[in-house]
Structure formats: C-alpha cells, structure tokens
C-alpha cells in the first residue's frame, strides 16, 4: 500500500485543484456509465465526455503539482480525501440518466464559463489548457441541454424523474458560487475569475434550458455543501477507493 502524498495548498494550488478535481471526479462518475448507457450511442457519448474530462484533469493536476515535484498520477491517486477540492455536486453518485444529464448541464455550463474567462489568465499554461478545454465543454453543455429538454418535456415518467433529479441537485448549486479567499486571491493575481463571477451567466443559461424543459427549480435552502473546502460527502470515500485502489496496490503501475 502506497502512502498518501503531502501537498502544500497555497491559494493558487487550491484554485487549480478545484478545477482539476471537478474534472477528475466528474470524469470518474461519467466513466461509471461505461457498459450501462441507455443505448449504445449514449454509452459512447458519456464515456467520450469522461475522457475529455480526464484529459483536462491531467493537464490541470500536472500543472498544479509541477512546482512541488509531484506528477498527475500522484495527485490523482495518492491524495487523502480531505485534499480533494471538487465541489460536492460532482461527487454525488451517478443516479439515473436524468440525474446524470442534469448534473452534466450544471457542471459543463460552469466549466464552459470558467474556461472562457481562463483563456486570458496571467498563467500562460492555464490559459492554454482553457483554450483547448472550452471547445469540449461547449459540446458537453449542448449534449446535456439537449437531453434535459427531451426528458423534462418528454413522457410523464421522464418528467417525473427529471423533476426529482433537479430537486436533489439544486441543493448543491450554491456551493459553486460561494466566494472565499481562494477566489479572491485568484481574481487579484489575474490567475482566474472568482467562480461567483460567472453565477449570473450560469443562472441565465441553465435557467433557459430548464424553462424549455418545463422544469421548475426548487426554492433555495440554507444548506451549503463543502466539497471545495475538502469536506466531502460519504460518497467520496467510496469513489476514491474505486479510483485509487489499483495505483495504491501497484505503485507506479502503467499500461
């Protein structure tokens, strides 16, 4: 069993990890659809997107670890749960197909809006990663929006499942836009926007899709999830166990 790495988490590293871990953990969740998609074509679409996200995560984690002599695999597979900085939204179990496409809509819209702004980051490598990733995120958003409308505005059963998925997911949205010292430092240094800076655009874009789907977001609650601060749900440990066990059992294993 390989021991966990220790990572210095200054604000810039945390900012990169939030992005990288959002891609990594959502990619892992989408990868779980492999062999389980509702139709063959969607099975391939979901795993294509999982691979896009893993590719983005690789670039971001490589960049985040470079200054400390840590590589992408060490960051992806050898951190303890508390050192992952993804918002809770992306670690929730994949649920049914309605849940998956709605979460994809929320995450892809967020990532697209962030990538658009990150293209002008003062960090040249992050700007380059963003330039490539923004095209992928645009497709992920379009794919998800298409399905959210089809299912929300579909049969009684698909509408029921869509509304249930929205009720479950909506509680985890506020965390995405909670500003803190990590965001403030990134905004001040020109590393990237506060996630809160894209909130208005996110609400407009996601709101338009939900309206077309005939779905009504629930009223807000005071609940705040805390994944971005490293405090995760009970689902995260199970996800990490699945994701990490091979690299922990066979250190440095490659294929």
């Amino acid at each position, binding site marked *: 069993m390989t021991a966990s790495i220790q990572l210095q988490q200054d604000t810039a590293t945390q900012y990169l990890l939030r992005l990288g871990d959002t891609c990594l953990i959502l990619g892992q969740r989408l990868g779980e659809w492999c062999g389980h998609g509702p139709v*063959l*074509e*969607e099975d*391939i*679409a979901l795993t*294509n997107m999982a691979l896009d996200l893993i590719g983005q995560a690789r670039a971001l984690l490589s960049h985040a670890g470079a200054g400390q002599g840590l590589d992408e695999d060490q960051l992806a597979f050898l951190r303890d749960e508390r050192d992952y900085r993804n918002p809770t939204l992306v670690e929730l179990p994949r649920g049914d197909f309605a849940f998956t496409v709605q979460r994809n809509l929320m995450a892809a819209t967020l990532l697209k809006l962030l990538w658009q702004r990150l293209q002008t980051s003062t960090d040249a490598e992050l700007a380059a990663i963003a330039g490539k990733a923004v095209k992928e995120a645009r*497709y992920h958003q379009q794919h998800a929006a*298409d399905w959210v409308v*089809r299912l929300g505005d579909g049969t009684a059963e698909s509408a029921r499942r869509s509304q249930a998925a929205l009720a479950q997911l909506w509680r985890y949205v506020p965390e995405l836009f909670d500003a803190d010292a990590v965001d403030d430092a990134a905004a001040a240094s020109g590393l990237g926007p506060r996630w809160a800076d894209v909130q208005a655009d996110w609400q407009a874009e996601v709101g338009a899709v939900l309206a077309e789907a005939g779905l009504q977001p629930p009223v807000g609650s005071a609940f705040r999830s805390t994944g971005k601060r490293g405090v995760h749900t009970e689902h995260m440990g199970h996800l990490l166990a699945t994701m990490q066990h091979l690299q922990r059992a066979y250190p440095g294993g490659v294929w």
Partner: protein
Amino acid sequence: MTNPETRTEWPLWEVFVRSRAGLDHKHCGSLHAADAAMAIQMARDVYTRRQEGCSLWVVPSAQITASDPGDKDMYFDPAEDKVYRHPTFYKLPSEVDHM
C-alpha cells in the same frame, strides 16, 4: 415498415462522414436516434471520435430506396464485358488528376 405506434426502438439513420474539406461525404454506418438532431449528435460521438471527420450527414434509412439484390445479375453483370465504356484508351495530360 414498423408501425410507429408499437415500435419500441428509435428509427434507424444512415451516417455519412466527410473526412476532409473538398472530399465527398462517405457512408460509414448507421445508428438509432429519435430525430435528426439526436442522430447528428450521436453520429459525432460514435463515428468521429478518432478525428475521422469534419462534417456529418444523417439520412433516415427508410428514405433510402435500394436496388433489389435479386436484380443483381440483370443490372450489373452486363457491364462486365463492355471494356470500351472505360475511358482507358485516351492519353490524359498529366495535369488532370483523379480521373
């Protein structure tokens, strides 16, 4: 033709991919989708994920009229011994490509 009321599968679409600008769209396979927009999206994921294309067409398979395999002898065999129909007896200038 399956009755749309009792059908449990989505209709079939034929997929055509253009591999590079200037070349023709080539038939590359088929897939099931509920409508044209979904067929394009699925074709993108199924048939172009290894950089195979820069443009896609999808056509409802039901809209394609095919020749009858039973007519194959009658239709195509007579062309076998008509070598004079090929323009192979002309000397083409070298500037004329792809003839």
